[in-house]
């Protein structure tokens, strides 16, 4: 019982660390169409990659500072919203990151299968 609890706890914290590395890729993947902060929270949640709002909102601004995203205020509705979308640089970087990600997945698969064969 205790053992199970330890396993669960460790898995939880380690998988959190795994997910942390995927946050930026997750965000960039959804930014071809302009989105405002909360709409991005919802989309990611629907697709099973929920990211906390408190992490996401600051991240959007950081990515904009880095030139990966651009932003625009839309004030036509009664709720003014800041819409973010990919810049050309952002979409180049996203494309390259996707390649990296696929390589990573292949590499990991190889490692995991290989590990099974060794046993």
């Amino acid at each position, binding site marked *: 019982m205790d053992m199970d609890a330890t396993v669960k706890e460790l898995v939880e914290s380690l998988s959190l660390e795994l997910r942390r590395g995927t946050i930026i890729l997750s965000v960039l993947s959804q930014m071809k169409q302009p989105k405002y*902060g909360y709409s991005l929270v919802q989309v990611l949640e629907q697709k099973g990659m929920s990211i906390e709002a408190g992490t996401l909102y*600051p991240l959007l601004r950081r990515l904009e500072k880095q030139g990966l995203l651009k932003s625009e205020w839309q004030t036509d509705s009664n709720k003014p919203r800041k819409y973010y979308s990919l810049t050309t640089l952002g979409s180049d970087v996203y494309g390259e990151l996707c390649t990296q990600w696929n390589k990573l997945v292949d590499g990991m698969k190889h490692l995991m299968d290989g590990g099974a064969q060794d046993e």
Partner: protein
Amino acid sequence: MNKLNKDEMIKRYIYDVTRRLPQKSRSDLEEELRGNIYDMLPDDYTAQDVENVLQTLGNPAKLAAEYKDERRSLISGAYYDQYCFVLKIVLIAVAVGMVIAFIVGAIAEPLDAATNSLVSTVSLSIAEFFGSLISGLAQAFAYVTIAFFLIERYNIRIDSREWSVADLPPVPEDKALIKKSDPIGGIVFTVIVMLLFNLAPQYIAIYITTEAVEAVPLFNLEYFYAVLPLINIAFLLGIVREILRVVSGRHTLKLSITTTLFDLVAMALVLPVYFNPSIWNPTLLTDLGAAPWFTAEFAAGMQPFWSVFYIMFAAIILFAYLLDIGTTLYKGIRYGR
């Protein structure tokens, strides 16, 4: 709860986040954060909804830190060890110095205040002592922290380039290493002298025995207090110089040039002060006349020596600085590579 209260809650939250952020980005961020919060609320939201949303966004301090995304500590990890080390030495030196100053003061004080009962004088000065001990330690802490902060900000930014194996410094010969005891000794000595200068300059004196022990101050205290800030800056420069030596840990050309600059600035500050006759007690000779050993013949014998006494004191200080510059430059050039 009515709508105003709900909106007040949001207003307060936004304020609590943005007040921690630089002015520049504040208004845009405020707007955006407000938009985000209202987006997260249902159309007909209750106070409970607002609370839930704010709770989701979390502690304002944490959120602001996410927005800032900057180095947070004043003294970064790279210097933290040396910072703690120097801080320890300085605090110990201040405490020891103040205890010494207190004991000297306690011995001298009852002579002045013969009318008060000895007990009340002592207990009063013990209370005073702890008061000044605490503020002294707090000041020392602040100075060391500021010194390291400045060192980190302006001086040693050599790590900013891409690191390469070629950058590895050669393992220094033993002679190129700076023994920690040297800068520590320097810091302790400077702190103690600085305390003496600031807390009890009247006891920097020649002590004579008439009916009681009497202190004849060396300095003209009025002038002394006027120039004390200059002297203090020179002391602080000296402390920073020693801190640089601790941080470096070995003689390098860069270190020797930097410490030389510190010495030159300190010299420029204090030498005019010490070479100026106004700093010395003008009535020193007459005051000393009260001492039984200060006979007319003695005074006459001292006369030629006396005229150069002032200059000698200043010359000793000049010599100390020149010695420090000389040895530093020699070692920096000799072992710097």
